[in-house]
């Protein structure tokens, strides 16, 4: 299989540098570092502490007042998997700010039991109206296979739906406001142009979420336009006519995933998993899909940034753990192969084990990886920093 030019494709710096405050490296696409070697996400975390959150809450109340409908129809769309983050947003909007949300979920590729139970509890214990978008399973499998081979990310079909389904629901239900949780680009490092505004530009979808390849790209790989339709955004004119606005709750309320966990334990019946997720130490995040471990694993291969690096980086910023603990966790868990659902993954995507590893190796960039005695290791892991 042809080796990919990862560095060029994602515009990655040739020299790997780690943030002085957290565990993230400059290999995270679009992240920036300041002159003191501190990443944009850490700087934003610092900035968050200086914000006047009372003022931000007033802005939220104003926003709700502008969009609230009193005729029984929905006034806000909240995308939510049944996890702690969307659960927090939906519950606050409905039960604290008096909105009438329609919560929407794009179906996981291969759901887990714990994920499904949490979603049921979110609806039943938390108390929400809910719509699940479930695309044709045969098409989704094919797309997963294609995305794995072409993008090195089997999760891409899910991301299409996750991004576009709420837009579609907004248009169909004449709801102008969509409320997401955090803005990943801002909280976790990326394009900082969004740090000072509550909304997201729909034009950024291709660039930030679809690796430059919108769903329509797959037509040339034999997926019919009709089969692709569920993954696609509504027509742009429809989005405009609906006056659709995407807002982030993290702009209005200080975003703290751990506190969301506490909140949802109390209010929406949320339960963490029985054991930690492979590739990291946590057991309360990203629990609902058997495929997502491979999304994180491929991220580790491409950027040297696995799930533990991402988790520790934001927990350090949130003051939950020290950098030293973060580095120890990275050393212990990052890049751990998600073997629990490997056979499910292979049979779902119709990939052989051999093809899988061949594809994985084609995404290893020379500036990140070295091979010694047939074993791939990171050239510059954070725990070997001088």
């Amino acid at each position: 299989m042809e080796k990919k030019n990862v560095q060029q494709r994602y515009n990655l710096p040739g020299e790997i540098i780690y943030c002085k405050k957290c565990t993230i490296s400059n290999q995270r696409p679009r992240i920036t570092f300041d002159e003191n070697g501190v990443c944009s996400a850490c700087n934003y975390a610092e900035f968050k502490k200086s914000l006047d959150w009372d003022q931000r809450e007033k802005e939220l109340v104003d926003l709700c007042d502008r969009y609230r409908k009193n005729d029984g129809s929905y006034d806000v769309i909240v995308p939510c998997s049944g996890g702690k983050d969307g659960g927090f947003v939906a519950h606050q909007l409905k039960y604290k700010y008096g909105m009438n949300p329609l919560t929407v979920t794009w179906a996981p590729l291969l759901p887990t039991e714990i994920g499904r139970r949490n979603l049921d509890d979110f609806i039943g214990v938390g108390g929400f109206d809910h719509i699940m978008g479930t695309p044709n399973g045969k098409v989704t499998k094919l797309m997963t296979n294609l995305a794995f081979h072409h993008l090195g990310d089997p999760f891409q079909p899910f991301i299409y739906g996750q991004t576009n389904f709420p837009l579609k629901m907004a248009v169909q239900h004449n709801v102008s406001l969509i409320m997401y949780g955090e803005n990943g680009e801002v909280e976790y490092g990326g394009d900082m142009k969004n740090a000072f505004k509550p909304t997201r530009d729909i034009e950024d979808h291709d660039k930030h979420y679809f690796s430059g390849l919108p769903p329509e790209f797959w037509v040339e790989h034999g997926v019919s336009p009709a089969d692709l339709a569920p993954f696609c955004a509504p027509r742009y004119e429809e989005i405009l006519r609906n006056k659709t606005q995407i807002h982030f709750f993290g702009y209005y309320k200080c975003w703290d995933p751990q506190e969301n966990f506490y909140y949802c334990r109390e209010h929406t019946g949320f339960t963490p998993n029985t054991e930690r997720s492979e590739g990291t130490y946590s057991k309360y995040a990203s629990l609902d899909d058997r495929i997502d471990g491979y999304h994180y694993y491929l991220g580790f291969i491409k950027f040297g940034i696995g799930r533990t690096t991402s988790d520790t980086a934001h927990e350090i910023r949130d003051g939950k753990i020290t950098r030293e603990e973060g580095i120890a966790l990275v050393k212990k868990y990052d890049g751990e192969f998600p073997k629990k659902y490997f056979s499910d993954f292979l049979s779902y995507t119709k990939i052989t084990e051999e093809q899988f590893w061949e594809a994985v190796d084609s995404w290893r960039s020379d500036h990140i990886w070295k091979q010694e005695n047939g074993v791939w290791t990171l050239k510059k892991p954070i725990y070997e920093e001088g």
Partner: protein
Amino acid sequence: MPNIRLIARLDIKGPNLIKGVQLEGLRVMGDPEEFATRYYHQGADELIYMDVVASLYGRNNLTEIVRHSAQNIFIPLTVGGGVRSTDDVNALLRAGADKVAINTAAIKRPGLIQEVARRFGSQCMVLSIEAKKVSEGKWEAYTDNGREPSGLDVVEWAMRGCELGAGEIMLTSVDQEGTRRGFDCDLVRSVATAVPIPVIASGGMGMTEHMVEVVKAGCADAVAMADILHYKRMELPEIRAAGLDVGLHVRHL
């Protein structure tokens, strides 16, 4: 009949006292010694310090805190987390611990229980078990602060630990821990009736009725509490008084 002991449990990570729910989402609470001193003055019968990141670093980092605490706190102190050898036990006992609690290392090498019991006595060998419910009447032992399954059945493991010389069992229910919804009484009873040694029930105390229930129905010999104390939902004198009120054999102060 010996007294039912009321034990304050402090889970410690680095310099901080922390508290989770089902051992997840570990919130930083503050300086562990401040809390420990408060509980001592309020009449706790014992204290437990657990280093919850010890297995991550492969060592127990509590020696200094233990040394310092032992100068000001004069009730039995159990210390756990990352204890892997008799040398580790020796170091903690010398620092001022009265007992050590061992989980992961004992699961990996049950012989360690015997070694510790022979060298230091069973009275200081506490077997710590993190129990996760698998089905009705069945629990699996976990390690790494409730993150890794071991495959061991909790009741069988408790019996084996007892045979090897453990003098006490600290039994934490991963499902109930931090939830304030009460102890897993079935779990505690299953273990307490299977072994002749004392069992400390840990995980789930949200009100005094839970304590009474786990002692009466669960046959617990001691009750560990964390959330209820750390968040000051109740204080130890109130809890003790509530126990005395219903005739529980707790120590009169």
